């Protein structure tokens, strides 16, 4: 065999092997899963890899929304880097990959037909959240600045980002906040506060450790994270053993207390040391029952609370307006938190305020449609609050007041103060007076 023939044989064989390689690679291409969401009319291949992921919510059906409308990204690319390079909320370290992060929420969730519409239509969710103390952190900033002589009163002037409100509807609303950034002359403590103490608002990236895992933006509350931060859903691309993921790819209004507790009841800020002191009584003994664990988790050891305050979930009492804001910029959480024991239990002199739903488009019905655990129909009589909100899940059946747990659907009969042996004074109606008698003695933990 000549040199040419030998080389031809070797190279011919190599070409054959490479051709087989191409056939093998083609045979390993993924089975394409394509959807064409009705709202965009543009095909998307995301489910090729993410087959099995949960639908985000019943109000955002996959057939209508698909993935790209909210998440951005390249829906036609099947290369992970390219597909995700343009995701809203980013991919890089320090970003969340979360389209509801407040830095991108207007693009992802906004629009007048979606969540940045008119207040009259109840579509001003983004404006309400951006102005709320949960996002601005204005209360804490004002308190610290005031305490260290940086401002003459406790009225908010700064937030973690600049924000303005053109339509003020309450007495405590302020027109705008500038971005908080202590100047060179500010006391060291204020600098330390700016450095150390800004974990507690929905734009902050949380500590990456058990109990603290959560998302940012809308998903900080509406996407449930387990305390261990592990994903329990069906998307094969999300590692099941890698902490830092939501329980599932879902938005919900059935928000369990432990989701709120990824921020609340986690410990205390020491103003003296200007540092966060994490509570140290968790997870508690292994022998605890689920109920005992809940009782231990719910509040910090020093907290005073009543039975219903840990048997129910936070969202059973705290309203949409209190939590997401009322559209005004406030200087303090106290400016917006108004629900008291009497909202549901009434007083010695009066039943709680009730209203009968007549409008089929009533917010109580719309809210109920977003929650799988209770329903409201025209003709139902429900709790109404002093601020004009309704508790559609607490209904008067003619003789009794019955609460349906928003998170688990459990039924509770709400005891009424009227006709009871309660000895409260008519001018002592705030909850802390109720705690004088009804405080619950925790038997475990601190």
């Amino acid at each position: 065999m000549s040199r040419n023939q030998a080389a031809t044989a070797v190279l011919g064989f190599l070409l054959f092997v490479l051709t087989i390689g191409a056939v093998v690679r083609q045979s390993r291409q993924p089975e394409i899963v394509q959807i064409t969401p009705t709202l965009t009319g543009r095909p998307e291949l995301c489910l090729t890899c993410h087959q099995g992921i949960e639908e985000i919510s019943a109000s955002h059906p996959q057939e209508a929304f698909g993935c790209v409308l909210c998440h951005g990204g390249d829906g036609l690319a099947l290369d992970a880097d390219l597909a995700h390079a343009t995701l809203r909320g980013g991919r890089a370290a320090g970003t969340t990959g979360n389209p509801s992060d407040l830095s991108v929420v207007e693009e992802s969730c906004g629009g007048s037909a979606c969540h940045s519409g008119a207040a009259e239509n109840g579509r001003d969710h983004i404006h309400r959240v951006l102005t709320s103390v949960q996002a601005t952190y204005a209360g804490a900033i004002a308190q610290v600045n005031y305490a260290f002589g940086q401002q003459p009163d406790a009225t908010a002037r700064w937030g973690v980002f600049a924000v303005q409100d053109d339509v003020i509807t309450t007495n405590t609303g302020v027109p705008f906040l500038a971005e908080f950034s202590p100047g060179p002359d500010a006391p060291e403590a204020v600098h330390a506060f700016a450095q150390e103490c800004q974990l507690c608002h929905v734009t902050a990236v949380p500590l990456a450790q058990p109990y603290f895992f959560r998302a940012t933006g809308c998903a900080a509350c509406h996407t449930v994270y387990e305390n261990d931060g592990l994903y329990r859903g069906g998307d094969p691309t999300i590692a099941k053993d890698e902490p830092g993921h939501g329980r599932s790819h879902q938005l919900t209004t059935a928000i369990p207390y432990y989701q709120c507790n990824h921020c609340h009841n986690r410990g205390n800020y020491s103003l003296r040391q200007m540092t966060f002191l994490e509570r140290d009584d968790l997870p508690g003994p292994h022998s605890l029952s689920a109920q005992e664990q809940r009782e231990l988790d719910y509040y910090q050891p020093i907290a005073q609370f009543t039975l219903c305050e840990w048997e129910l979930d936070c969202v059973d009492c705290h309203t949409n307006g209190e939590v997401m804001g009322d559209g005004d910029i406030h200087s303090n959480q106290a400016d917006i938190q108004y629900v008291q024991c009497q909202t549901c239990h009434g007083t010695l002199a009066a039943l709680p305020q009730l209203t009968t739903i007549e409008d089929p488009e009533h917010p109580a019905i719309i809210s109920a449609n977003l929650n799988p655990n209770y329903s409201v129909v025209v003709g139902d009589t429900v709790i109404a609050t002093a601020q004009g909100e309704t508790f559609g899940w607490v209904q008067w059946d003619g003789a009794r007041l019955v609460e349906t747990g928003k998170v688990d659907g459990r039924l509770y009969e709400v005891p009424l103060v009227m006709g009871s042996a309660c000895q409260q004074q008519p001018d002592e109606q705030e909850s802390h007076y109720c705690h004088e008698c009804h405080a619950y003695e925790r038997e475990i933990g601190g």
Partner: protein
Amino acid sequence: MIPNMSRPNFFEHLHPPTIPAREARFRYTFGLGGMSMLLFLSLVVTGVPLMFAYVPTAVAAGETIRAITYVAPYGWLLRNLHYWAAVLLVGLGSLHLLRVALSGSYKPPRRLNWLLGLLALLLSLLLSFSGYVLRWDVDTFGALTVGVNIVRQTPLIGNWLYELLVGGPYISDATVVRFYTWHTLGLSVPVLLLLGWHAFRVRRDGGISHLQSSHPPRISRRELVQREGVTMLALLCLLLGLALFVDAPLAPAVDSVNGPATAVTASIAAPWFFLWVQALLRHLPPLVAGIIMPLAVTLALALLPWLWDRSETGTAVWFNREGRLAQIIVLLIAAGIVLLTAWEWWG
């Protein structure tokens, strides 16, 4: 029936019956011209099926590139082969030019063929650039924007050239159609014809450039075709290997309405073979860096057999004494391009 092996086959017929042995050796030509020829044919063979899938509009371009890359069976392979054949063509074609310049093979009577080859290489660069633009992603959109605005700097005819390329005052569907048509017809057909003419001129000019001696040892064309076959097989292995293991690049899509869709901006906008122009653009006015310098390089190369080496001896001698000046100029140009490219790539 066993074919009569003593009769020359089709490929053998493309060559003269015998070839001077010295110049038929691989280490004289490195097979660069033949390999470039094969690469161009590979580009036609892989390009035609891509035309069936590619839809040249601003919206559909990126979508159909993705359909080819991710959905169509063997689409990834076709696109990768097309990409790597183009990369290799620019590389090996340039090396072929260098070989011809340094071995004095441009000297009379081959001066016309030097021009034909140079023109084919220049048009191949434009073909590569238009192919790059047809990817229609944020990187190539950046290159397109820079490129057509450089063209606009051309004195007197700049605006006319711009509109000729862009198909209107703004980049739009018309731009994609124009680049597509230039790529698939307007440039590729002329290059194909030029390469045919180029090959024909090699025969007409007395075969491969060779020493002027009376009775040099010669080899048969059968031997030559076998060597070429081995080289081509090796090249195909390289091409297929690259296509199999290294995917052609693709960047985030361009928003058809608002231009680049995202804040992801490419640090490198030009395709790799124009990075040297991009490096110049950083430091010189666009007219100088984008028009005058490339034109000067082109002219310096085109006029090489007239300006820098008018001798008729030294043909087929690597680094022949007569062609010193031409060799120095070509090497300086090559070194400049390589250094600027490296600077832009790593800098």
